[in-house]
């Protein structure tokens, strides 16, 4: 089966499609299996980048800018080079070719070339015999700076005329990307609405905080082969970027992702340390390692963009939305990163699960002299989703409608097209609403709890991969190779990056299901560019969908051979042969079966050495306009949350008591992993709403670059989380699966705001929801009650 045959109405997992029944009688899929690397991680056996130690290895450290914005006048590294134990010092001049994960915006240098753009920007790197010597050498490098005016405020930066952050920025101000798209007659539709709400919302900066800091190790062989082990979620793009910046042929570069301790989007750019260890290894002839400190991870950032958002929504008396109009200012930080995509996602991903008859958005990403923002779990769409879902509650309030009911009313349905031209296939959002309504006791409790306690709802959708590869090309987005050995062992080679989400496990489950082996007999070789076919990486929630489909594609080719060979040996019709874990069985004769190794041997005898490849590429998707493919996905996941909060009106503290998460993942290939992703997503969203704040102080210095001062919830701060899996069985996903790792984050944040409204009658529209803001809103509420026109809070 060619990968492209998976698409369209006859796609294999759709209702009534050929082979439908066979595809639902699962032996492995849908069961709560362990992760394939679970024991290794639990016992400490797993090898992370920092566990790698090579003979003669040097340790590298980075010198960073103490200025938010400055020209580099000169760098004198002679004293550092003279320090015993120092092997090399490199600066921007050693790697002058710019790069960027998005090929259209290459505005980063491995080390700053002429200027620095935020406090923490990389300026020089040292390789020495140990970390202490490298650190001592950093203090001996003399850098002369000419400070420039720093732009810390995005509104100021938007109109700034002097001290441009990037000299080649087009137009006025420090604009990184501007997108304006309009669908339908928004002004007329909103003008004709029965109710209108216009309001401003603010989403602050937050960062990923993976427990493993970034780390990379490089080795350069006498034959000119460069190997880089890196804590990355994009081995393929790192390989390409290294080739471009270092001028090494791509075929001579091997990038390996070892076991990874979390990423969440924070490891999906090429980073300075990867180039530095590679260059230093090439210069010194020794292996070189660089491990960043926690503080450096905060400077590397690429986290959630702060967004200043103005939304205007119109609705009819029955609750139906008539139009949505959005204007968004995105604070991008110092570099582009994925910013071009962010500016699109901020608008493009809002057009579900509700039907918008008309929609317009205008989003501007602006550079500031702060750590660069990028993609964090729910890239670009978590912030607008917060604004819109709160605004939808405001409309429901104005209309006197139940907040779940207004969401049902606007449900877009299955197999439809959004106002901005995105194709929607499976859509279990309505079931998600039903589930959270039932589980939370919404009908009996919402609006009826004592003051101080409340329930709130929100919905969302997210992509399962995108048909827009980061660099345009017609090649498969995911490739798989499988090798079968006569012992019964199957080895799968995948470029997919397992960043803790369990993608290697998913590959193993699919192979076990398809080829009749136990999960433990599947070896997964992953994310090593010398060994595996190309995969684009773990981002945009693409891995389960795309790698999963490629895996099934490769398995089906092999399965056909094995079944044909066994059927031939048994002299029965191939339709009677079924592969189940450990055996090939005869559906027509329950006594006849052979161990799977024997089936493999029979097939090898017939077809020679057994192996196959599989691939996946997206169908043609997206609206027919510039940017119409950005945000176009082969399938969308849908989520609804109900959150229960209590609000202490004396202290202003919001406690999230419980959170019900209903998520349409298409099909749960392993419900335990899906529930884990749902709980982890909701936890992360609640943390962003109530605790986290990634910001700089008045000097442009990160306000608290440590796990003490950047507050993520501890176990005692985590509410009861209830994962409610909804399976809509997508026609094109692997066995009907869609994403589960990012979508379930979105609704938690607006659901808290909406629950606080239910609890005490205040609308929180500016994140984070600190106790001080709650107390201020309560004071305003009391003042409004005392004023003659004020409403009476419950």
């Amino acid at each position: 089966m060619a990968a492209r045959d998976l698409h369209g109405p006859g796609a294999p997992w759709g209702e009534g499609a050929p082979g439908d029944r066979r595809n639902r009688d699962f032996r492995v899929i849908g069961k709560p299996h362990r992760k394939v690397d679970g024991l290794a991680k639990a016992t400490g056996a797993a090898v992370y980048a920092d566990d790698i130690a090579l003979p003669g290895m040097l340790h590298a450290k980075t010198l960073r800018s103490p200025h938010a914005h400055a020209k580099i006048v000169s760098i004198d590294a002679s004293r550092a080079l003279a320090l015993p134990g120092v092997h090399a010092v490199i600066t921007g001049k050693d790697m002058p070719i710019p790069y960027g994960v998005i090929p259209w915006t290459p505005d980063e240098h491995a080390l700053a070339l002429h200027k620095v753009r935020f406090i923490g920007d990389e300026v020089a790197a040292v390789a020495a015999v140990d970390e202490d010597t490298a650190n001592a050498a950093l203090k001996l490098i003399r850098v002369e700076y000419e400070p420039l005016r720093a732009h810390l405020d995005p509104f100021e930066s938007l109109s700034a005329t002097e001290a441009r952050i990037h000299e080649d920025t087009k137009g006025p101000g420090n604009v990184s990307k501007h997108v304006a798209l309009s669908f339908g007659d928004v002004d007329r539709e909103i003008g004709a609405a029965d109710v209108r709400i216009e309001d401003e919302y603010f989403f602050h900066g937050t960062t990923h905080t993976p427990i493993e800091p970034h780390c990379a190790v490089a080795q350069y062989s006498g034959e000119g082969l460069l190997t880089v082990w890196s804590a990355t979620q994009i081995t393929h793009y790192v390989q390409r970027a290294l080739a471009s910046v270092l001028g090494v042929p791509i075929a001579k570069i091997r990038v390996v992702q070892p076991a990874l301790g979390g990423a969440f989007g924070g490891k999906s750019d090429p980073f300075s340390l990867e180039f530095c260890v590679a260059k230093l290894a090439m210069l010194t002839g020794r292996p070189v390692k660089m491990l960043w400190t926690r503080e450096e991870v905060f400077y590397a950032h690429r986290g959630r963009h702060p967004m200043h958002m103005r939304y205007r929504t119109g609705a009819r008396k029955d609750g139906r939305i008539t139009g949505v109009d959005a204007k968004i200012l995105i604070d991008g930080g110092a570099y582009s990163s994925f910013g071009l995509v962010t500016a699109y996602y901020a608008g493009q991903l809002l057009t579900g699960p509700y039907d918008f008859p008309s929609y317009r958005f205008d989003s501007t990403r602006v550079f500031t002299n702060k750590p660069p923002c990028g993609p964090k779990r729910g890239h670009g769409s978590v912030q607008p989703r917060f604004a819109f879902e709160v605004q939808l509650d405001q409309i429901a309030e104005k209309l006197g409608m139940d907040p779940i009911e207004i969401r049902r009313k606007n449900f877009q349905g299955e197999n439809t097209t959004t106002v901005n031209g995105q194709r929607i296939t499976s859509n279990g959002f309505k079931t998600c609403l039903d589930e959270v309504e039932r589980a939370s006791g919404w009908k009996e409790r919402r609006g009826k709890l004592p003051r101080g306690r409340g329930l709130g709802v929100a919905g969302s959708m997210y992509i399962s991969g995108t048909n827009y590869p980061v660099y345009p090309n017609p090649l498969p987005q995911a490739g798989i190779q499988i090798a079968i050995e006569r012992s019964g062992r199957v080895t799968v080679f995948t470029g997919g990056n397992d960043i803790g989400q369990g993608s290697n496990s998913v590959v193993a489950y699919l192979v076990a299901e398809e080829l009749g082996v136990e999960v433990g007999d599947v070896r997964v070789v992953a994310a090593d560019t010398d060994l595996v076919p190309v995969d684009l990486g773990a981002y945009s929630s693409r891995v389960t969908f795309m790698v999963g489909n490629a895996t099934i594609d490769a398995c089906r080719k092999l399965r056909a051979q094995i079944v044909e060979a066994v059927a031939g040996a048994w002299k029965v019709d191939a339709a009677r042969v079924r592969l189940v874990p450990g055996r090939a069985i005869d559906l027509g004769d329950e006594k006849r079966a052979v161990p799977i190794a024997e089936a493999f041997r029979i097939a090898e005898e017939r077809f020679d050495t057994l192996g196959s490849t599989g691939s996946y590429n997206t169908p043609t998707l997206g609206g027919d306009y510039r940017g119409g493919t950005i945000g176009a996905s082969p399938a969308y996941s849908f989520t609804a949350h109900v959150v229960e909060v209590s609000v202490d009106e004396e202290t202003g503290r919001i406690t999230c008591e419980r959170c019900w998460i209903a998520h349409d993942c298409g099909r749960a290939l392993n419900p335990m992993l899906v529930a884990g992703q749902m709980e982890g997503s909701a936890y992360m969203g609640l943390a962003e709403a109530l605790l986290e704040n990634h910001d700089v102080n008045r000097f442009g210095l990160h306000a608290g670059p440590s796990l003490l001062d950047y507050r993520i919830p501890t176990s005692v701060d985590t509410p009861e989380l209830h994962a409610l899996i909804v399976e809509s069985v997508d026609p094109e996903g692997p066995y009907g699966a869609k994403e589960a790792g990012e979508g379930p984050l979105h609704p938690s944040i607006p659901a808290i705001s909406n629950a606080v409204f239910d609890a005490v009658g205040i609308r929180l529209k500016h994140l984070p929801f600190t106790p001080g803001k709650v107390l201020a809103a309560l004071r305003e509420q009391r003042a409004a009650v005392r004023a003659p026109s004020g409403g009476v809070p419950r």
Partner: protein
Amino acid sequence: MLRLPKFDVARPSTVSEAVALLAEGGPSAMIVAGGTDLLPNLKHELFAPDVLVSLAGIPELAGVREDADGWITIGAMTSLADLAAHPLLARKAPALAQAAGVVAGPQLRSMGTLGGNVMLDTRCQWYNQTYFWRQALGFCLKKDGTLCHVVAGGKKCVAAASNDTAPALMTLSAVLEIEGPEGRRTLPVDEFWVADGIWNKKLEPGEILVGVRLPPGRAGHRGAYGKLRDRGSIDFPLLGVAARLDLEPDGTVADADLVVTALAARPLRIQKARALLAGTRVGTPEHDRAVVEVGEKAHAQCHPLENVPGDADYRREMVPVLVRRTLAAAARGEGPVHPL
């Protein structure tokens, strides 16, 4: 990972050996107990000792005992986890046990000691940072610099006393036992802290805090500790309140004390608390009014600064709330008041 600087570790087995080692090392020697405060500070290059004198191997510094005269002696090396779980302290010094139980998180309380918490360095958002960060700032008054970033033009360091046990010990009228080259001395804890964020303790160079002694309390002793922080664990206090109520058998307040911390360089006693609360009977409207009034006095007396992370206005707004709740918990024999 941040690197520790290089230093030697000395492991004396008696206090006098430790005192001698400190004298020998002079200014380049420092004491290490559990290390939970010192080691992060060393990684931040706030100190650069040549030798750390570890108190971990000195048997006489560990443990809690009640003496015949009713005094309780707590060795400086008693872990915070042990203090928090100690039945005698839960009965006789509940505010201290509660405060010890909400320091940092479980792992840190297992390593951290009472002596270490008493000796905790003052904290400030402009100080407890890496060398790189502080260098980018241009340093600060407390370390390597001349400017205060909390108080513009400030000449005196206002880094905050952030030890949870300090206000509890003050409400208990604790006495510190200190040993130095001149021998052993005692000092009422009330006289120990001074309003200087750079060094807020009256401990002379070369001296070691050996232990803390608590005088026998009254029969109706009640105490509680309240702590404001963002999370339910790990964080230092944004505000801490220790309360003592000594009750007559009928619930009338015979004596009271209230100390607030994490505002400035030293813990602050709320002066009017004793006079307002004494003579009121717990559970009566008169007592409740007195509690509210104590909260108002505390609010008037407390002026949190932007020294520790967090909004100073909010911390000030929480002073009367935490005072009221901590007094209420003490009256009921409950606590700690945490999370708020």
